């Protein structure tokens, strides 16, 4: 009988909605008073969450509830919020409150009122109710339709009811889409890898903290970093670009300048200001592969950039700001590097909050077949021609590829190379047994030789940084890599020369030698104009 004798409500005092002075307060809807005025809703206990500075308002609301509903016992709970819009703080306080109040759902029919409080508070109440920290149903109240009355409407929402399955289904669907994106649409079969992707799909959109991807070379760290970027961009969590750099390729003197930029004249050869990769990644995602290769000075500077979101370009006395999501990749045991004194312990602590270990291809060999199909698709799409295995060839290739003799030292990078070779050789668009036999010999020979060189990223990154000096990020992102290389070279040339004509002469020297007359300056002007650039602008921004 205790339970049927009315509800217990947890509700925020509505610092604006519940307000009202004098008799006028009886002429408009005040949600917390109104809850207690409904003829078909009996509130036995009303717990009002209140900040101390609103004591006066609380007193009035409590008195008015006592008048309109003598059946209701009003209790005050002080919730001291420094910032009622701070998600973490509000969640924390409400979580604590749910512990302190220790409701027993057997004794009390609890309702959590969602209509008052900041939106942040409403979200936190929802979450705590959904997770049963408040063993409650949600109470939603609204103003009277057409302003006829002052009591308004109420509705109880039970999150356990099946009609919310559809809502839950939509969330599940979105998670599935996110997971599929992270897996590039590949129907992977390895349970451990799928679990890793599921976790990553939850972590990546929810966190801006650095992510550490561990795994052997070719395991797909770079590919996955790109996918995380795509996922966050799709959910509108990033606006900036994806910047990728392999730290192994920027060791030595240029490393600091490549990452953090420099002032013109900072060192011999520093002819212009350079923004650096961290600055370029502002608002976007920076993937630092092989982070274990980073020098001690750069490690210190990177740590500062992560903690303060600001750092000092070489030769500059002014700090610059950049806010980016960091993903670090490593194929080394960074714990060991810390023990040897080659990697900073505090930096490791900062970047391994979320660590994902990517298995090599051999450790998820059941995923080889779907990845093979993916690579075939990718090649077909790239060259615009369908390539496929004959049935026999496919069986033979898979037999070898999944056998213990296939070492896959370079992991997915090896598979990608292998498929590219097979497709290129399959002139008719059909990969035969013969080509597969040859490919097997080649792969085995490669693995015997052992050791792989890493691809170079530096030139590519330098081109992009140069272009960012004259064009916006969006424009650069819209230019094909093919054209970026050319445009970067043209920009460099313009900056070397004093005039459009002089630059034109160098750029079109070969044509010039063949023909008697040619208008080099006009050709160059037209080329620059295609990108919305002109010589003056390009040269001036040096």
């Amino acid at each position, binding site marked *: 009988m205790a339970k049927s*004798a009315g509800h217990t409500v947890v509700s925020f005092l509505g610092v604006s909605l519940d307000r009202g002075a004098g*008799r006028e307060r*009886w002429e408009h809807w005040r949600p917390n008073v109104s809850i207690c005025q409904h003829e078909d809703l009996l509130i036995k206990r009303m717990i009002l969450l209140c900040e101390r500075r609103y004591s006066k308002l609380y007193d009035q609301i409590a008195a008015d509830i006592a*008048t309109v509903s003598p*059946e209701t016992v009003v209790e005050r709970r002080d919730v001291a919020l420094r910032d009622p819009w701070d998600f973490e703080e509000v969640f924390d306080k409400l979580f604590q409150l749910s512990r302190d109040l220790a409701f027993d759902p057997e004794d009390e029919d609890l309702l959590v009122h969602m209509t008052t409080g900041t939106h942040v508070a409403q979200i936190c109440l929802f979450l705590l109710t959904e997770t049963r920290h408040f063993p409650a149903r949600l109470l939603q109240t609204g103003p009277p339709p057409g302003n006829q009355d002052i009591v308004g409407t109420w509705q109880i929402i039970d999150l356990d009811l099946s009609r919310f399955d559809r809502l839950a289904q939509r969330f599940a669907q979105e998670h599935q889409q996110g997971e599929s994106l992270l897996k590039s649409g590949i129907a992977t079969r390895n349970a451990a890898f799928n679990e890793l992707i599921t976790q990553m799909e939850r972590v990546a959109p929810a966190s801006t903290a650095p992510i550490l991807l561990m795994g052997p070379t070719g395991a797909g760290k770079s590919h996955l970093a790109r996918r995380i970027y795509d996922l966050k961009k799709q959910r509108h969590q990033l606006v900036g670009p994806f910047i990728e750099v392999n730290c192994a390729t920027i060791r030595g003197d240029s490393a600091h300048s490549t990452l953090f930029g420099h002032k013109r004249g900072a060192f011999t050869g520093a002819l212009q200001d350079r923004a650096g990769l961290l600055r370029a990644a502002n608002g976007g995602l920076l993937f630092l592969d092989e982070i274990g290769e980073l020098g001690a000075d750069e490690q210190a500077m990177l740590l500062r950039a992560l903690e303060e979101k600001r750092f000092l370009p070489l030769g500059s006395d002014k700090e610059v700001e950049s806010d980016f999501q960091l993903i670090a990749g490593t194929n080394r045991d960074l714990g060991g590097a810390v023990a040897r004194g080659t990697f900073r312990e505090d930096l490791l602590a900062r970047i391994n909050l979320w660590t994902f270990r990517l298995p090599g291809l051999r450790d998820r060999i059941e995923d080889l077949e779907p990845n093979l199909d993916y690579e075939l698709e990718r090649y077909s799409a790239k060259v615009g021609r369908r390539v496929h295995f004959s049935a026999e060839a496919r069986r033979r290739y898979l037999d070898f590829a999944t056998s213990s003799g296939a070492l896959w030292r370079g992991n997915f990078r090896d598979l990608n190379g292998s498929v590219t070779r097979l497709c290129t050789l399959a002139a008719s668009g059909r990969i035969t047994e013969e080509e597969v036999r040859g490919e097997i010999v080649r792969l085995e020979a490669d693995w015997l030789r052992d050791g792989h060189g890493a691809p170079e990223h530096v030139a590519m990154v330098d081109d992009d940084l140069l272009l960012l000096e004259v064009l916006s990020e969006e424009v650069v992102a819209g230019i094909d890599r093919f054209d970026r290389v050319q445009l970067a070279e043209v920009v460099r040339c313009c900056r070397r020369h004093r005039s459009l004509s002089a630059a034109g002469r160098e750029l079109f020297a070969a044509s010039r030698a063949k023909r008697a007359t040619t208008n080099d300056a006009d050709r160059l002007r037209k080329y620059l104009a295609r990108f919305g650039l002109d010589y003056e602008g390009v040269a001036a921004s040096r």
Partner: protein
Amino acid sequence: MLFLDGSMGEGGGQVLRTALGLSLVTGTAFSIEKIRAGREKPGLKRQHLTAVLAAAEVGDAAVEGAAIGSQRLTFKPKGLRAGDYRFAIGSAGSTTLVLQTVLPALLSANGPSTVELVGGTHNPLAPPFDFLQHAFAPVLHRMGAGLGLEIHKHGFYPAGGGQWRATITPAAWQPIELLTRLGEPQLRARIVSAKIPSHVAQREASMLRARLKLRADEITIDEVASPGPGNAVMLRLGFGEVTELVSGLGDRGIRAEDVAGNVANEAEELLTANVPVGEHLADQLLIPMALARGGAFRTMTPSLHTRTNAQVIEQFLPVQFAMREDAGAWRIEVQSR
């Protein structure tokens, strides 16, 4: 154990209140089903629950199904107790209806009682306090029962919070007959206001003067103490032995002229009918007359509300109501079975 169908007749709270009152008087347990069946939100509402709990207190009753939305209730009184009671009710419920529920029992108890009531005193769809004071209590007195009333604070919708007190002396019932008017009807108006602009009452008074030819000294305007804003127009119609009271409530969005105009309309209808007992008093007289085991009155066409009430009373008490048309009016008579 009596079994009642809550959907009979009008199917509102009246069946429940009458059943509770007479169950206490007779000690008869009852079970009622289909309470407010077919309504948008069926079952007990808060004001009904308050009535059930008040009756349970007075009769020391065991109750099952006393919850909001419950469509089934079982009520078993153990013993009627005179005493000092206090019932507080939310703004949407009327305190006069709560008193109406327990009054038959306390009038039949073995000693005097007091009931302190907190809540609405002038609510829509319920007799206002002034009705009890000017129309109902005097008739009870003539029937041998004592009902003393004093009001401290008025309570209007939506704030509520009125306070008043009823002193009840058990009855030595005497049947009465109210069949004709004596002399010219005496009209007296009382307009009460709280926390609203004074022109509202002035305009209502003007309307009553214009429509009913009332003199200024026949209208009283009172500013009353109340937790929230409110306004009521009450008109007493004295027919010699008996007084009826018609009333209207001010509300947001309703013009003062319309509030007073509706009161005037109802008064004119009653004046034309040439009967001593109006619709409101007719409804309230059924239980006391049944308890007195006799009596008769002439009134207007009985409402469905009144007919349903009579049916419920007949199930608890050994009486029978006769309602028949009589020279352009209706004669309602109660007899012992």
